[in-house]
């Protein structure tokens, strides 16, 4: 455990040093406050209005940003150390590969958790202070759930980044692969689903398999989780609303996200054991 924490502490300190923590916190805070304030601009008003709208627009932005940030943060974790020769050195220490990867995950996970909670937390504080309409308790419940799912989404992509990093033989390839994974999971997947729906004209079979198709993509799980609680938000969300009506309970969605953290991590750990160096 001491070894794991040593590695985690180093990764976290690197995150502070590289201004990752600060940058992510700032981006999230500015985005959340901005969206909250200008969210209703389309209806001709400014100011903090509906909570559902704010969370809906926040989640549709976060679903692009968080995976990208997580992949950028962690894509070179293994292949980067391999390239600079420190991986070989670390493995000659009394430290197992699983300990090394777990330590890195705790460090990267902490960077994401701290900056996500801080960034959106500050935004929540600003919104409660300046809004008359939004109820404090309701806001914090919704925002708390949003932050929790956002952190889990980030962790899932950190774990996916490790899979990439373990598989890649060069850092530049890992970067390219990370971009492809981001593009497929964040953009392409939903387009394909939409295409499938249109092609089958919303046939009964497609609609019944849709929840499972949505569960097999962490970004969709995140999106549904944050839209499901708000009827108003369902109006905005198009595709996800179709499946949101049945069998996608928040607890199940959290569980699915947790699975999306653990499975890729286990895969990365397994692949790492088999890696040549």
């Amino acid at each position: 455990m001491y070894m794991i924490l040593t590695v985690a502490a180093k990764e976290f300190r690197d995150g502070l040093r590289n201004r990752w923590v600060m940058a992510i916190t700032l981006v999230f805070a500015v985005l959340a406050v901005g969206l909250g304030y200008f969210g209703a601009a389309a209806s001709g008003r400014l100011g903090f209005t509906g909570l559902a709208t704010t969370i809906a627009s926040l989640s549709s932005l976060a679903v692009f940003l968080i995976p990208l940030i997580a992949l950028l943060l962690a894509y070179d974790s293994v292949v980067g150390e391999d390239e600079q020769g420190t991986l070989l050195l670390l493995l000659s220490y009394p430290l197992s590969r699983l300990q090394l990867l777990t330590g890195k995950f705790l460090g990267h996970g902490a960077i994401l958790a701290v900056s996500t909670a801080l960034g959106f937390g500050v935004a929540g504080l600003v919104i409660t202070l300046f809004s008359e309409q939004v109820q404090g308790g309701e806001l914090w419940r919704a925002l708390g759930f949003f932050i929790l799912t956002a952190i889990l989404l980030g962790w899932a992509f950190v774990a996916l980044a490790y899979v990439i990093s373990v598989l890649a033989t060069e850092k530049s390839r890992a970067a390219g692969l990370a971009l492809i994974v981001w593009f497929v999971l964040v953009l392409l997947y939903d387009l394909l689903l939409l295409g499938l729906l249109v092609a089958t004209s919303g046939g009964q079979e497609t609609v019944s398999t849709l929840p499972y198709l949505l569960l097999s993509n962490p970004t969709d799980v995140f999106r549904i989780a944050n839209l499901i609680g708000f009827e108003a938000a369902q109006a905005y969300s198009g595709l996800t609303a179709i499946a949101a009506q049945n069998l996608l309970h928040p607890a199940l969605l959290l569980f699915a996200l947790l699975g999306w953290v653990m499975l890729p991590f286990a895969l990365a750990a397994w692949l790492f054991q088999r890696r040549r160096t």
Partner: protein
Amino acid sequence: MEGEPVMSVVELEQVSKVFERLEALAGLSLRVSEGEVVGLLGHNGAGKSTTMKLILGLIRATGGEVRVFGQPPHGAQAHHLRLRIGYLPENVMFYEQLTGREVLRYFGRLKRVAAGQVDELLERVGLQGAADRRVKTYSKGMRQRLGLAQALLGWPRLLILDEPTVGLDPLAIRDFYTIIDELQAQGVTVILSSHTLSGIERHIDRAVILGGGRLLADGTLEELRARAGLPYRLRAYGRFASDDWPEHLPVPALVTQRAADGCLEFSVAGQDKLAALRGLLDHPAIQDIELEPPSLEALYAYFSAAAESGSLPPCT
């Protein structure tokens, strides 16, 4: 032999290693005793790094047996072994954004070393002045010294250094070997590899020459020289009269060079060198004499060529 007085720190028995289709090592047997400084020599791809990784337990042998401090270097008990081993990989780039002290602290924690030892080691390798500068600003020599400090964390009993002097200037190489000599005096076993042979000669007890994953030669430099039978180079300087060059020695010697400035160079067999020297000393015009043993380069070339032509003298 059973019950040897000196313990074998590293033992390789008929070890082979195959990467996919590439045979990196083929039936390598090697034994390193406690307190020895062994030079692992060979061209790139000879199997030096593979041998080191096998000893470190970073990779597993395809065949044969590896034992370090009498135990296999991988598996459950290997963690305990690793506390007693220091390693400096080839071309390692430490975390550039950290300072030298921070790098050493990180690795020190992973080796469960007391924090005070980091400062001690920084001083030992002469980096105390640059300890709080980022590694990014370090010269090649400073990086290598940091690497050595890292390998010395926890005062290991076995030190494995992969190409430790590559890219270093002569002064840095000298400093480096000064530290190695000190460690040797403390009874630390050192295995270091090199593909350049200059500078290493006076600091190793034994040379192990590898080529194509096989052992080409193994022995002290004197033994290897005797086995190769390579000639010594003997140079005589003097103001010789044009008809009085001391070209005829009492022993068979081949004149290899005859420069107008009065330098005469012979090639003499090892057992004849003293007789040749005596013969030269009698000449009145001699001002200076140089005797140069066959270099490691020459030995290396000899054993490599012998292996290639298949006329390899049997290795023990």
